[in-house]
């Protein structure tokens, strides 16, 4: 599973720290997410998508 978190975050001009605060997680978790090193729960995926003003299906790309 890939994601566009870094791309959208850069577009919105917000830091990892700010995104983490909005999503209610630690900054390290955002680092892991951006590097595709962690698969978030549905709730976290929703919270991150909401923080980046997008939807889960647009933010996360599922690959077979």
């Amino acid at each position: 599973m890939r994601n566009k978190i870094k791309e959208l975050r850069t577009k919105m001009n917000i830091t990892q720290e700010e995104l983490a605060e909005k999503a209610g997680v630690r900054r390290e978790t955002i680092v892991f997410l951006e590097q595709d090193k962690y698969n978030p729960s549905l709730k976290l995926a929703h919270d991150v998508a909401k923080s980046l003003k997008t939807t889960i299906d647009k933010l996360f790309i599922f690959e077979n």
Partner: protein
Amino acid sequence: MELTFKQYNTIRLIVVMILAMIIGNMIVLKNFFIPIILLVISSLLLIYLRKNVKGVIADERDYAMGGKAAFLAMQVYSWVAVAGMFLFWAFSDINPFYKPIAMTLAFSTCILMLLYSVIFRYYNKINLTDKKLIYSVFVLALFLAIFLVFSLRLFSGEDNWICQNGQWVEHGHPSFPAPTTNCD
């Protein structure tokens, strides 16, 4: 008073270091009352400080990692304890003090496994049942029963060494050698 996560971690580290120093000294002085009080006070202090930390201390990734780490730590401890238990038991003829060490390792592994099973089942069932209170009381009662059984076994004095006429005399079948201290 608001703290950052870094400040909280620094304070926690200092508290642990001070605790370790005091407890170490108190054990040497055979004083167990002060360490227990200090443990309670420091735990309450850390809980209070934790509540005043600004931001997220731990999130779902930390809990997921914590669960994996705890499971692995439990497995490693169990294997090491069981291997150690067999070794100490095998060499208990050379040194009789190895026997209680082997028994402690065996019992601690059993208690750890039992606790893990009970807690796992609790978390597995608690979200599915509507009778959360009844289930919680049942699990608590089970814990208390286990604690009571082990306490009775450990402190009953059934298998122990008794001081009689200036000599240590076997009472039952103690699994450890007679105390080396003077019997008055």
